[in-house]
């Protein structure tokens, strides 16, 4: 790499991201697409905030949705306040644009983490996982008891077309909301990346790796965990604020275990060890969820299988894989590794095809209709042995390719 270009290296990812965000509306069209992109943006922030805990701080949380949901509730109540203040035109909220609501979400999430976090951060590991699980269930169940705050089963709804408008930035169509999402995603991602560069961010890695040693050096691990916990809660709340503006409704479901699980799923599929991993995971899982659910009722099963496969066979996640390729490319020995990796990818593809066919066929047998197969132009007959033979062939071929490419990789390593 040319020495005179070295200033470009740290700036490049941000410049490229900004460019992609600006050009995206030129390429895609239609409110449906923008809706998906907006959800992707929310999930990117949510998954990254989750990774501040798990990937960087070594704290496995099953209650992260609490902060996401409380941030969303804070933002939606603020939105209602803005709407009410709009009638008489004075007071603080009359001058607060909806555009800044994610800040309210951040404050609510961070505050909630500040209030509950201290007793939780004594230990990492299983104890932390269990206590956050308890917190999540507690808050989700408790939210049903206070209908004036949480809106009961139906949730709290609002209208984002209120309050002052800055620079003509309206929030009417999903395409308008896109700019809001793009702005806040960029801000949040940059802030979370900057956090990893602060001394606190570095210390959180140290807590993850060796808490005892840190204690000896004189940094109480509990204080560090607590600070990271607050920051992560804040960014989750920011994501919640974005969600409140996007959906204009917040339900108690957003506080529950399923939402927490989604954060974990996205972060782990994308890869915990790489900063951009959870972003990749968020994009993949969100797109899978929203596209597949149009074609098959087994979409959650597919997401679960992808997650399981990543945990078993690629602990580094997708981000880890990308990083491996990037490093090999930089070292200049990509050519030597590529056939082995492509072979592995082919094996995964074959086995995945086999699995998808099996699941869809089983589905066809038990429910009698199958949209995904018809989409692919297939009308398979589950009674025909030929179909099953084809599936077995797929599995066998996948296994064979996996063995051969595995041996190839071992020989090259």
């Amino acid at each position, binding site marked *: 790499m040319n020495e005179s270009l070295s200033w470009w290296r740290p700036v490049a990812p941000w410049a490229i991201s900004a460019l992609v965000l600006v050009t995206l509306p030129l390429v895609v069209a239609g409110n449906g697409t923008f809706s998906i992109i907006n959800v992707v943006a929310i999930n990117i922030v949510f998954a990254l905030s989750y990774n501040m805990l798990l990937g960087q701080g070594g704290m496995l949380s099953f209650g992260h949705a609490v902060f996401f949901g409380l941030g969303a509730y804070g933002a939606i109540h603020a939105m209602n306040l803005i709407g009410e203040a709009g009638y008489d035109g004075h007071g603080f909220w009359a001058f607060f644009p909806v555009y800044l609501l994610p800040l309210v979400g951040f404050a609510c999430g961070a505050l909630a983490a500040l209030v509950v976090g201290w007793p939780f951060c004594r230990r990492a590991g299983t104890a932390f996982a*269990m206590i956050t699980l308890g917190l999540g*269930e507690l808050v989700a169940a408790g939210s049903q008891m206070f209908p004036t705050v949480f809106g009961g089963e139906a949730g709290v709804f609002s209208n984002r077309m209120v309050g002052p408008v800055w620079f003509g930035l309206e929030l009417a169509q999903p395409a308008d909301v896109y700019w809001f999402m793009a702005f806040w995603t960029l801000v949040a991602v940059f802030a979370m990346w900057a956090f990893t560069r602060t001394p606190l961010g570095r210390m959180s890695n140290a807590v993850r790796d060796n808490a005892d040693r840190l204690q000896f050096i004189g940094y109480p691990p509990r204080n560090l965990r607590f600070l990271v916990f607050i920051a992560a809660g804040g960014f989750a709340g920011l994501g919640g604020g974005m969600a409140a503006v996007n959906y204009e409704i917040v339900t108690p479901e957003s506080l529950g275990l399923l939402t927490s699980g989604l954060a974990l799923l996205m972060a782990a599929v994308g890869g915990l060890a790489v900063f951009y991993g959870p972003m990749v995971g968020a994009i993949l899982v969100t797109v899978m969820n929203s596209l597949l659910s149009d074609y098959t009722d087994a979409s959650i099963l597919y997401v*679960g299988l992808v997650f399981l496969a990543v945990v078993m066979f690629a602990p580094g996640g997708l981000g880890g894989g990308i990083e491996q390729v990037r490093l090999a490319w930089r070292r200049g020995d990509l050519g030597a590794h590529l056939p082995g990796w492509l072979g592995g990818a082919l094996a995964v593809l074959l086995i995945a095809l086999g699995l998808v066919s099996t699941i869809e066929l089983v589905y066809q047998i038990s429910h009698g209709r199958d949209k995904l197969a018809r989409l692919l132009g297939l009308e398979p007959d589950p009674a025909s042995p030929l179909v099953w033979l084809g599936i077995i062939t797929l599995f066998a071929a996948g296994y064979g390719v996996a063995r051969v490419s595995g041996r190839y990789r071992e020989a090259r390593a």
Partner: protein
Amino acid sequence: MLEVIVFSTLNGLLYGLLLFMLSSGLTLIFSMMGVLNFAHASFYMLGAYFAYALGLHIGFWPALFLAPLLVAVLGAVVERFGLRRVHENGHVAELLFTFGLAYVIDETVHLLWGSIPVSYSAPEALRAPLFSLFGTDYSIYRGVTMMIAILMFVALWFLLKKTRVGLMIRAALTHGAMVGHLGHNVPRLFMGVFAFGCGLAALAGVIGGPLLSTEPGMAQSLGPVVFVVVVVGGMGSLLGAFYASLLIGLVQTFFVALDVSIGDLLNGLGFAVDPYGEVTGITLASIAPMTPFILLVLILIFRPRGLMGELEP
């Protein structure tokens, strides 16, 4: 009032014993392998569904024995080819694996049996009343369920305390490496315990399915409560899990049965508050689902090793 107390005690005991059947396997797995098996309640659900599906062909009683066996075999396969593989990546990876597994099992059940409850019920003969109190019948099936749960507790206790395998398991709980050095096959022991624990969960599903309802949400509704039992009872303590299950079962049942709000309680204690306010109007029945988690959070803050445990998780 007496009627409420007697029946709530009976139902609470029953629920607690079911919880114990579910959590005893998890306690063993947790304390031996350090893995909180997120899919444990999913195996419980599989037990109920397998028993339902088998019962359609071979009848209730054979299914009662066959379904847990099938689930145990499935558990062994999961341990051998899944969990053992991720074991080297640490506890977090194992937790993630079981978390994903729970997703996959729950969705597969959705796929195979649909999202509405299936009509899995106890045989006609067992639905007759065992006795009648205050004009309410108590079915034979409930009595049988209690008996099976208590028999299981005794058998488990005997297995762990009086047999050679139990000795090995107890040794491996605390000194896994040492047991391995003495020439015992610890991974196989792990597999056995995992399979056995899954089988116990399935047994709970088989007999609990007709009492609670057999539907795809049953794992998700009971799963977190089972964790609470294991953590509150203390790592590796069967007796602790037993007490914790009964405690949670009784507290939940009584909270549901008592038609009292927080305001009523405070007024009873001599405070004068509005019994229909936002906070004071909350009934104990609506707090009932939260009680296990309040207990969990309090225990983890004030007594992290649980009621009877010797080690912190």
